[in-house]
């Protein structure tokens, strides 16, 4: 008995998929990368883009066509718009919500799929937690040295371009005890990079104000777990500028284990577009935040998200985004062409910026990014960094790695370094990446906390 699970979309979905895999493996069902040999086929769906939804429909048509020649059980979970739910129910054998994950073995058994191990699994009792047993499932982490830890689910921000509030519901903070226990287990396993995940991580705890930690307190507690332990870096994504606080930045500054890398979505550099996006902050507020970041965390790298060609975006408004990018000097920007997302409020507005204009704007912003990122990268040549080796590059010739600030780089070295911190000297800089060589002492495990660049 084997399963094959596809996850679409963001890290939240990857994290959800890791928990689903853990449940299936707990039933004694093995994972396979080969769809053809799987008996259970599943998708963790994403509703952020129409392309992802189209892929779900395409996959299930393909899988259902196979049913006349093999016994298959198909299932779907993840971010699903209410309007898609009845359509998926007609096509998939099973549709389950992530908070129903503890019941998954029962659901599968009802289809006659019984494994020896699954006979010993009983569904968890109902709890008052709106996410049921979801948080309690020990995930099947995709990597031995990097892990995502969900700290929150849902979103209350209602940005007009986004459907997440309609698919994942209101913000619900995971109990801090659960989070700290999972982080502790990861530290014991020797994980080197932990990313705290949520749609708006820095509004963590606001749904249980007074009864739960704030995000700054949570970060501090996570950092305390790292005191005197083998080195690791802690990241978080993604924050909303509205809820980013000085306390969060100060906490990061005070604790070496908290990585000096900030992802601060801009989306647009024009106040009026921000209003239409319902971002609930002004450019002035964003600018103040960037100044705080530069002041409190002078070595931090800064990443962002930007949408070009949003409904009604004028040339002048786009140019304001371009100016903002020049001003804030990002190290990385995830720039997306606007496309109406089914279910999101802006899908009811005209998608009135021609595709050719969107592409041209994306190209212009990419140039600005290359300039700012390239300037930063060139300043790093000759410096020594501690980096985390995370794999091989595409051609397999080099090791790939990243700095604490998530700047990607490549270096030559033995495969045994994958998953390790090493010290390198930067030898070359490109616009979006670096090249490095191992320092003499690079082969021994190093502590990023002791690094002096």
């Amino acid at each position, binding site marked *: 008995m084997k399963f094959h699970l596809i996850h679409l979309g963001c890290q939240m979905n990857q994290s959800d998929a890791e928990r689903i895999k853990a449940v299936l493996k707990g039933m004694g069902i093995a994972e396979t990368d080969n769809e053809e040999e799987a008996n259970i086929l599943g998708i963790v*769906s994403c509703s952020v883009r129409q392309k992802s939804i189209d892929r779900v429909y395409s996959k299930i048509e393909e899988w259902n066509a196979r049913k006349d020649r093999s016994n298959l059980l198909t299932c779907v*979970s*993840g*971010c*699903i*718009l*209410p*309007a898609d*739910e*009845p359509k998926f129910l007609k096509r998939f054998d099973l*549709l389950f*919500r*992530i*908070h129903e994950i503890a019941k998954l073995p029962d659901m599968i058994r009802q289809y006659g799929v019984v494994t020896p191990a699954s006979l010993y699994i009983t569904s968890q009792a109902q709890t008052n937690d*709106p*996410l049921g047993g979801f948080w309690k499932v020990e995930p099947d982490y995709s990597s031995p040295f990097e892990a995502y830890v969900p700290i929150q*689910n*849902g979103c*209350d921000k*209602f940005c*007009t371009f986004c459907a997440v*509030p*309609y*698919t*994942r*519901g*209101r913000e*619900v903070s995971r109990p801090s005890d659960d989070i700290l226990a999972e982080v502790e287990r990861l530290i014991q396993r020797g994980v080197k990079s932990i990313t705290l995940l949520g749609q708006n991580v820095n509004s963590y705890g606001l749904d249980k104000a007074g009864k739960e930690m704030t995000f700054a307190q949570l970060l501090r507690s996570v950092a305390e777990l790292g005191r005197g332990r083998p080195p690791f870096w802690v990241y978080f994504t993604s924050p909303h500028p*509205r809820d980013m606080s000085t306390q969060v930045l100060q906490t990061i500054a005070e604790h070496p284990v908290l990585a000096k890398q900030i992802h601060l979505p801009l989306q647009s550099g024009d*106040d*009026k577009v921000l*209003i*239409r996006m*319902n971002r*609930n902050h*002004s*450019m*002035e*507020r964003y600018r103040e935040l960037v100044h705080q970041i530069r002041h409190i965390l002078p070595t931090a790298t800064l990443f962002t998200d930007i949408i070009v060609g949003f409904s*009604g975006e004028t040339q002048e408004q786009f140019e304001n985004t371009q100016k903002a990018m020049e001003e804030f000097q990002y190290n990385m920007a995830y720039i997306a062409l606007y496309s109406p997302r089914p279910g999101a*409020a*802006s899908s*009811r*507005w005209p998608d009135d910026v021609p595709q050719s204009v969107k592409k041209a704007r994306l190209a212009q912003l990419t140039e600005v990014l290359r300039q700012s990122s390239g300037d930063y990268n060139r300043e790093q040549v000759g410096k020594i960094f501690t980096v985390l080796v995370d794999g091989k590059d595409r051609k397999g010739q080099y090791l790939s790695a990243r700095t604490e600030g998530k700047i990607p780089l490549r270096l030559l070295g033995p495969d045994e370094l994958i998953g390790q911190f090493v010290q390198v000297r930067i030898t070359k800089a490109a616009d979006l990446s670096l090249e490095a060589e191992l320092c003499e002492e690079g082969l021994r495990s190093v502590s990023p906390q002791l690094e002096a660049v």
Partner: protein
Amino acid sequence: MFRIILMIHRVLGVNTLSSGAVCVRFSREGMSFQAGQHILVSLPGTYVAREYSIASGEQDPWLEILIRVVPGGKLSPKLARLKPGDHVEISGPCGFFTPDLSSAKRVLVATGTGIAPFRSFFRSGKAAQSVLVHGVRQLVETSWFDDWSTVPYVRCVSREDGGELRGRVTQWIAQNAPRLAECEWWFCGNSQMIQEGWDLLQQVGLDSNQIHTEVYF
């Protein structure tokens, strides 16, 4: 998929305000909220939800929303046909368009049903020293409520006489922004009005942190 947590609320009444707008009153079902927040409303068994600002006060024993009926819309025409005793699904409250209890002077600018959150401000005692500026096409749309007798209320009516100003709210802003530059400005309604208002306030040097917006779509 995490299911949005929905509560079933009973319709207590539907009041036709004009040919294109209704006010629907629901049972409160213990929901607490802050004036200025919104809720998601849908009909049981359907998959279409829309956000509506709460128009009632924090202490009112019911919830009220104002609905602009969009011809051919997926939900608003159905909501306008609700009858007392019918049920709706409500999720929330959500949103950050919420004033604090400070005594700051506020200018509240609305178009059409965008007046809903401001009505909640007033009914919740959170609009002391505020002036309300309401843009509508016809005078009948300003007679939706009887709460305004004690409130500085400027009616900007674009298609007929009878209001304090014959024209659009942006004309009023252009005339009055310089003398009200120390105030907090709160906008709710269509995005074009908000954007034009924003430009006018920037021209007189208002700090963007003085401006709060809630876009209707």
